[in-house]
C-alpha cells in the first residue's frame, strides 16, 4: 500500500533528524510563544547562528503549555538529552548560543529541564518538574515536539496509523471501539461520542456531514487554539476516522476568526493530506471518498452552539434552533450531521492508534481519558495542561498551577466559563470529572479554569459572566434575552450598592426560570455562575446589600479612599498624582480626599510612600478626617494626646 511507503520514508527521515550530528534547535512559535516575542527570538537566533557559522537545524514547533515562561527554546546536541530553556528573550539568545553551542556550557541557570535519555548536571528532568509531573500528555503528545506544518513528522510519530487501522477494521468495529472507550464529548456537555456517531451512522441518507467545532469562545479557554496550532493532524485524523465510520462525504472545521494561526496551519495540513492521498476520491484505495474545508467564524460566541454553528455554515444568522430534530437526523442543509469538539476528534485518533483497552487506563470510572484545561486568572503558572479525569482540583491548582499568584489565598475557580460555576475551597479535594462538577453546580465545559483569589469579589465575578451571556444571547428566545438582561441588571445594582433585600430571592427565581425555559444551552446554563456564587458565597451578596460593603474591596461604588490624618506627612505626592484633582493639601499639611470628586482609581494608594502608609482603602466604614488641611504637626500632636 502507498501509505506504507510514505510511513517508512517519514520514519527514516525522523530517525535521521534525531540522530543528526548537527545541533538542533526547537522553538515554540504558536500564538502564545509569539505573544511572548518568539518571532524576535527566532530572528536574532538566525542572525547569531549565521554570525558564528553554526550549521544548526532550526524547527518551529507548537506549544508545550508553559505559557508563563515563554519563549521556550530547546537545544539538542548529538548524544545529549534535549535541554529546554525558558524565557529565552532576544537578549538572552546570543549568550545561550555562544555558551552552549560554542563553549559547550549548558547553562543550567537558564535551563528548565532535560527531555529524553541521559542527564546533565544541574538540570532536572523536565517531566519531574511539579508543573508537569501530575500531567498525562496523550492528546497533546506531539505539541511542542513536532513541526505542525510537516505531515511527515506527524506520520513518523504514529500519525494516521489510527485511520489505517480503522479502514482495516471496517466501520462497525470502529464504532464498537469508540463506544467501548466510553469517550465523552470534550466540548462541554460530555455526551457519549460513540452513541452520537451511531445515531448519525444509522440515519438514512446518502449525503452526510461531519463538523469539527473549533469555535472556542468561553472566556478563559484556549485549549483548542493550542491543539490546532501545535498538532492539527491529530484532529484531522480523528475526523477522517469519524467520516469513514459515519459514512460522511464532506467535513467542515468551524474555527473562530480570532485564531488566524490555527486557520493557517489547518489549511496547510489539509493541503498536505490531499497531497498524500488522505483526502479526496477513494482514499488509500479503501473505497471511501471524503474531503473537508475550513469555515471561519465572524465573531459570534453563540456559533459555538451546534445548531447555531450549522446555521452559520449555511451563511445565515447564527441562531440556535430547538432540538429535536437532532443534527444526527437533520443537520447541515437538513442532512444527517455529526459534530464534535476539536479535542474529542483528537481523542478519537488516539483511541484508534492505541486501542480502547489502553485508553481505559486513564481517567475515572465515569469519565475516561484525559482533559486539557487552560489555567488563567490569579494563578501562579498560567498555561495549558492535560490531566487524567478524576484528578483532584487541589493537584491542578497547587501542584501544576503552583498555587495562587503573589502568595494570596485561593477563593474559587470557575470551570465551564459562562456556562459553568465556581468551586470554593471546600471543594478543592473533589475530583474533576463530568459528574462531580455537575453535582457541585458547575460543569466541565470546554476546559477553561478561571482562578479567583481573596481579592476577587464574587458578586462582581458573577456579574462579569452574566454580562457576557446577556451580550452574546442571540435574542431568539425570550427567557434568555430578557432573563439574562434582568439578572445582569440586578447584579449591577448590587455591585453599585443599590441592592435591595428582595434581590437575592429574585435572582434565585430568575435563575430557575431562565434555566428551565431557554431554547438552547446558552440560556440553560447562563444562570450557573449566579447560582453557584449564591450557593457558596452568599455572605458576599448579603454584605453588598445589607451593609453596602464589598468585602474584597473591588466594587468601586462601595469603596472609599481616605488619608489617615495621623500618618500623612504632607509630602504632596498623592496630590500631584491624582488624575481627578480630588486631593487638597499642601507642604506639611494633612491631605484630604474629596469623596465627591474621587474616581477611586487608587493612584494615591500606589504613590503614598510605604514608610507613611497614610492612604487606606475601605468599604462599608467611615474614617474621620479633618474638614480642611491642617498642619501635619497638629495632627501628630492630636494623635499623641488621645
Amino acid at each position, binding site marked *: 500500500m502507498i501509505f506504507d511507503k510514505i510511513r517508512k520514508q517519514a520514519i527514516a527521515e525522523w530517525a535521521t533528524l534525531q540522530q543528526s550530528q548537527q545541533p538542533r534547535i526547537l522553538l515554540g512559535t504558536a500564538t502564545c510563544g509569539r505573544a511572548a516575542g518568539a518571532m524576535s527570538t527566532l530572528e536574532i537566533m538566525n542572525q547569531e547562528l549565521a554570525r558564528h557559522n553554526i550549521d544548526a537545524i532550526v524547527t518551529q514547533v507548537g506549544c508545550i503549555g508553559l505559557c508563563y515562561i515563554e519563549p521556550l527554546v530547546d537545544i539538542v546536541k548529538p548524544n545529549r538529552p534535549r535541554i529546554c530553556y525558558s524565557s529565552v528573550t532576544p537578549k538572552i539568545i546570543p549568550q545561550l548560543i555562544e555558551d552552549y553551542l560554542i563553549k559547550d556550557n549548558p547553562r543550567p541557570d537558564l535551563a528548565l529541564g532535560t527531555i529524553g535519555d541521559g542527564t546533565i548536571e544541574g538540570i532536572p528532568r523536565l517531566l519531574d518538574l511539579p508543573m508537569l509531573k501530575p500531567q498525562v500528555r496523550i492528546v497533546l503528545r506531539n505539541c511542542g515536539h513536532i513541526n505542525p506544518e510537516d505531515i511527515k513528522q506527524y506520520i513518523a510519530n504514529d500519525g494516521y496509523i489510527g485511520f489505517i487501522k480503522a479502514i482495516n477494521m471496517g466501520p462497525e468495529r470502529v464504532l464498537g471501539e469508540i463506544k467501548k472507550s466510553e469517550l465523552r464529548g470534550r466540548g462541554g456537555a460530555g455526551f457519549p461520542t460513540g452513541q452520537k456517531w451511531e445515531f448519525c451512522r444509522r440515519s438514512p441518507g446518502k449525503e452526510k456531514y461531519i463538523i469539527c467545532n473549533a469555535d*472556542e469562545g468561553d472566556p478563559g479557554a484556549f485549549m483548542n487554539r493550542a491543539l490546532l496550532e501545535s498538532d492539527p493532524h491529530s484532529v484531522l485524523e480523528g475526523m477522517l476516522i469519524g467520516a469513514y465510520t459515519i459514512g460522511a462525504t464532506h467535513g467542515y472545521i468551524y474555527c473562530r476568526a480570532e485564531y488566524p494561526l490555527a486557520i493557517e496551519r489547518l489549511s496547510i495540513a489539509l493541503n498536505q493530506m490531499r497531497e498524500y492521498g488522505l483526502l479526496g476520491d477513494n482514499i488509500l484505495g479503501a473505497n471511501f471518498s471524503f474531503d473537508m474545508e475550513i469555515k471561519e467564524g465572524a465573531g459570534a460566541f453563540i456559533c459555538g452552539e451546534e445548531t447555531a454553528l450549522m446555521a452559520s455554515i449555511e451563511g445565515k444568522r447564527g441562531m440556535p434552533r430547538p432540538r429535536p430534530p437532532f443534527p444526527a437526523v437533520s443537520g447541515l442543509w437538513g442532512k444527517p450531521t455529526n459534530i464534535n469538539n476539536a479535542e474529542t476528534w483528537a481523542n478519537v485518533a488516539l483511541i484508534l492508534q492505541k486501542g480502547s483497552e489502553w485508553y481505559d487506563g486513564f481517567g475515572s470510572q465515569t469519565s475516561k481519558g484525559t482533559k486539557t484545561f487552560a489555567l488563567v486568572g490569579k494563578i501562579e503558572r498560567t498555561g495549558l495542561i492535560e490531566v487524567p479525569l478524576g484528578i483532584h482540583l487541589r493537584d491542578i491548582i497547587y501542584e501544576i498551577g503552583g498555587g495562587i499568584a503573589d502568595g494570596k489565598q485561593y477563593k474559587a475557580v470557575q470551570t465551564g466559563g459562562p456556562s459553568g460555576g465556581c468551586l470554593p475551597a471546600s471543594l478543592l479535594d473533589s475530583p474533576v470529572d463530568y459528574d462531580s462538577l455537575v453535582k457541585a453546580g458547575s460543569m466541565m465545559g470546554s476546559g477553561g479554569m478561571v482562578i479567583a483569589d481573596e481579592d476577587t469579589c464574587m458578586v462582581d465575578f458573577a456579574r462579569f459572566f452574566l454580562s457576557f451571556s446577556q451580550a452574546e444571547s442571540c435574542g431568539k428566545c425570550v427567557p434568555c434575552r430578557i432573563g439574562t438582561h434582568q439578572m445582569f441588571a440586578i447584579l449591577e445594582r448590587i455591585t453599585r450598592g443599590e441592592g435591595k433585600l428582595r434581590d437575592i430571592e429574585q435572582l434565585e427565581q430568575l435563575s430557575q426560570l431562565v434555566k428551565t425555559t431557554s431554547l438552547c444551552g446558552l440560556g440553560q446554563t447562563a444562570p450557573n455562575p449566579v447560582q453557584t456564587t449564591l450557593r457558596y458565597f452568599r455572605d458576599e451578596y448579603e454584605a453588598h446589600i445589607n451593609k453596602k460593603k464589598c468585602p474584597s474591596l473591588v466594587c468601586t461604588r462601595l469603596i472609599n479612599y481616605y488619608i489617615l490624618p495621623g500618618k500623612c506627612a504632607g509630602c504632596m505626592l498623592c496630590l500631584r498624582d491624582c488624575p481627578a484633582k480630588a486631593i487638597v493639601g499642601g507642604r506639611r499639611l494633612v491631605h484630604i480626599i474629596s469623596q465627591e470628586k474621587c474616581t477611586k482609581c487608587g493612584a494615591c494608594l500606589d504613590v503614598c510612600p510605604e514608610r507613611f502608609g497614610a492612604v487606606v482603602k475601605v468599604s462599608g466604614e467611615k474614617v474621620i478626617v479633618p474638614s480642611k488641611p491642617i498642619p501635619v504637626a497638629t495632627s501628630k500632636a492630636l494623635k499623641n494626646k488621645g
Partner: protein
Amino acid sequence: MTKIKTQTISPQNENILIRLKRVESQFGYIPEESITEVAQSLDLPVSEIYGVATFYSFLATKPLGRNVIWVCQNLPCHLKHAEITIDNLERTLGIKPGETTSDNKFSLELTNCIGACDYAPAMLINRDLHGNLTPNKISQILKLYK
C-alpha cells in the same frame, strides 16, 4: 459589477455570509448599497441580508479606521487589570470604544475573549495579537501601525 441571478444557493459555495465577507474584504466594511445588491442577486429580502450583516461582530456595517483595535473585556483579562489597558487606549487615542480617530488611523472596539487569556490583558490589532499589556507597551505597539 455583474449580478449573478441564482434561485437556490448552491450549498457549498455561495451563501449570504460568504458574500458579505467578500464585500467586507473589498471595501473594509459593508456599505448599504452592497446589502441591497446581495439581496437582489440572491433573490432574498434586504432585511435578511441586513440581519446577517449586523449579527456578526466581525462584519462592520460602518466604515472603520485603517487599523481596528479589539480589546478584550472579559473576566480573565479583567482580573489582570484590563480596565487600565482600556483606559489607557481611550486616553492615548482620544476616543471611546466604538469610535474612530479623526485621522482614520485607529478604531477602538471592545470584544469578548480572544482566546489569549494566558497573555491577559490582551488585544487584537487587525489580526495581530498583543498580550501582557502595560501602558508602556501599548504606546510602543501603537507606533507599529501606520
